[in-house]
């Protein structure tokens, strides 16, 4: 069973900061992760060397719920991240949701869903985020093929 990564939460305040959407991110994150867990099962079934871990990055303005796929024994392959990002619109009360599959370090995008804009409520964010995560869940073959060869080398290095 995969470990659940701890929340990376930079907000100390018990309530959302002014202007931030008042959304139950735990509920939204859990829904996204259910869909991404199905993706993980399919990837690990088809490509037994692949492993995945769930994660989330939160700030006052939103949530990035993701699952990282990698081949632990091959450090030459950039891990892949299937993730759904929920972010408050800068000039309005709504929420913008984007989802894609990209190289964790390279940032190279392998698949991208059409972004959605919904009301900044849990009731609106939950089904929209879940639908995008399910769309990403159809990318098992893309992930398996990408992890089978180092097609996404990191673009940056300090060496």
């Amino acid at each position, binding site marked *: 069973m995969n470990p659940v990564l701890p929340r990376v939460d930079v907000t100390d305040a018990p309530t959302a900061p002014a202007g931030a959407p008042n959304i139950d991110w735990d509920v939204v994150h859990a829904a996204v992760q259910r869909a991404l867990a199905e993706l993980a099962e399919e990837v690990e079934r088809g490509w037994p060397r692949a492993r995945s871990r769930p*994660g989330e*990055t939160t700030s006052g303005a939103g949530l990035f719920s993701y699952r990282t796929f990698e081949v632990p024994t091959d450090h030459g392959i950039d891990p892949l991240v299937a993730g759904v990002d929920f972010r408050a619109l800068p000039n309005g009360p709504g929420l913008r949701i984007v989802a894609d599959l990209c190289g964790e370090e*390279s940032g190279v995008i392998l698949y991208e869903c059409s972004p959605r804009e919904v009301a900044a409520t849990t009731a609106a964010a939950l089904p929209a985020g879940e639908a995008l995560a399910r769309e990403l869940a159809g990318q098992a073959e893309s992930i398996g093929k990408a992890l089978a060869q180092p097609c996404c080398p990191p673009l940056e290095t*300090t*060496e």
Partner: protein
Amino acid sequence: MPPTLQTAGTVYRCGAATKANLTPRPGRDTVGRTGQMPGLSTFGSLQASVKGQQIDLALLQMPLRAFADDSAEGGTAGHVTIVPINEAGEVDRALLDEWAATRATDEHHRLTDLIVAAIAQPNVRGPL
């Protein structure tokens, strides 16, 4: 001239906003070179069709500080490193090592939280 302290402007961390990618790599990012500080690598721009995290250096809280490479001394033009410093303004190598050691683990480090807090625009696409 050594790498230059940069306290304003925006830089881009290439890749996804995962905990691991916002944490330096042990052994690779913890060692600097002539003209370049060790630490988390960022760049002044983002290549076409590449995803990254826009970091506002004015939002970067201590002990983290950003240093632009000195390209004349072997650094890379446009490359900016984010690294913890001590009260003397020197690289806090023990803290950098401690931070990097959490990259492949389930624990998260407070310096990763500070990076997240300095992200002005997440998941932007190049060219920028």
